[in-house]
């Protein structure tokens, strides 16, 4: 993408004002890694949003609040009670990219292969958007369509709120790639709430092998009320085929990708259950 101008606003209000005035000729820049690959004939003004105090991770009540401009490497290194975000962040791209790429940049415009939307959907995260004042949105609402729709008027994503997992809650995520730094072939994530070995609630999401990250509700339905055992997980994972439109690619058929997703879901569920029963930190 061609940049005709580069500005560094000092406050959130200034950044929003600049983006509102620029309209389609403005582009928020955090890590900026994706901008190098975006096609666009019209040059844009880059609005640097990394100097607005939006890089932090804090535990606040029942949530971990992650500033939108926090690099993935900080999320990967952070440790809090029953923290689960580090695993997926470690699997995203390479060390050098994780050092600059931000959580906000990863989800403000969702590419089909993005991993974080999958994890945030399963985690029941909340997204904080600044439009003069801050408002919150559920991950279900935020990822119901391309989130870039929410930022056309200059509004900005400021934070991601991840619920602190309670005891008996467990989380697991699996990303399948051909090599360590490659884009995902399939990413799945699962959140389970167990009570006396029975699944009380479940959120399962997938991305990359489907057109857009989404929850797999038939898989969730096949889990709730059942025992948290492998046979149940297998049966639930088998519902993935009907839950989404699986798309082949990189020499793999749609059927192969679906099978890949099924075994990944099984794996994620096993991990989530192990976590819920009390994982070794």
């Amino acid at each position, binding site marked *: 993408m061609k940049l005709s*101008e580069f500005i560094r606003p000092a406050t959130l209000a200034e950044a929003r004002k600049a983006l509102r005035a620029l309209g389609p000729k403005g582009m928020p820049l955090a890590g900026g890694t994706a901008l190098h690959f975006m096609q666009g004939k019209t040059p844009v003004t880059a609005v640097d949003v990394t100097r607005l105090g939006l890089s932090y991770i804090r535990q606040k009540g029942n949530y971990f609040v992650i500033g939108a401009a926090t690099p993935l490497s900080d999320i990967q290194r952070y440790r809090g009670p029953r923290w689960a975000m580090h695993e997926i962040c470690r699997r995203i791209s390479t060390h050098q990219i994780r050092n600059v790429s931000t959580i906000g940049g990863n989800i403000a415009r969702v590419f089909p292969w993005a991993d974080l939307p999958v994890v945030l959907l399963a985690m029941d995260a909340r997204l904080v958007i600044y439009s003069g004042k801050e408002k919150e949105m559920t991950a279900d609402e935020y990822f119901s369509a391309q989130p870039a729709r929410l930022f056309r008027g200059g509004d900005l994503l400021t934070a991601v709120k991840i619920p602190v997992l309670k005891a008996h809650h467990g989380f697991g995520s699996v990303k399948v790639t051909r090599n360590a730094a490659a884009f995902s072939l399939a990413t799945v994530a699962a959140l389970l709430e167990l009570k006396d070995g029975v699944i009380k609630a479940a959120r399962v999401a997938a991305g990359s092998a489907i057109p857009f990250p989404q929850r797999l509700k038939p898989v969730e339905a096949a889990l709730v009320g059942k025992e948290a055992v492998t046979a149940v997980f297998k049966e639930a994972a088998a519902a993935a085929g009907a839950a989404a439109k699986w798309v082949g690619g990189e020499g793999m058929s749609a059927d192969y990708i679906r099978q890949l997703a099924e075994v990944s879901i099984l794996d994620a569920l096993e991990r989530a259950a192990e976590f819920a029963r009390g994982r070794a930190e």
Partner: protein
Amino acid sequence: MTTTTHTVTFTINGEKKTFATRPDEKLLTLLRREGYRGTKYGCGQGTCGACTVLLDGRATYACLLYAMQAEGRKVRTIESVGTFDKPGEFQKELVAAGAVQCGYCIPGMVMSATALMETEEVFEDEIVKEYMDGNLCRCTGYEKIWVALRKTLDKQASAKPAAKKTAKGAKK
């Protein structure tokens, strides 16, 4: 393409400098134009790691960073780590191990290893792999690079506790 003159000011290898640039100039292009040619242009798309520099101590791809993003930051290139006459510790071990084939990836490898050595205290294999996962060697000479890095890290790790003891002893 705009003709507007822009400037960017950052600390490069300990020295604060101001450079003329364009909004869409990459940091890699600026650095090489200004004579920091140890930083290599490899793939130009954030895959190979030959252009790795440190931005505020963290390894980053200079090919995926606009020069303007470096404003007010600290940038370090391979020139700050060692020279032909005075190589750094890892560079000496690379030579001793015969790990340098075409050599193109080496500056990037050294910068990632520098970030590792200056940030971490314990050099378990998993941590080392994490820091080095964004650097490719297309001669595929990974084994000897790993041997050289391991030697450097083991030396540094064995030197560290001693340094701490001395410091504590000095207080007493």
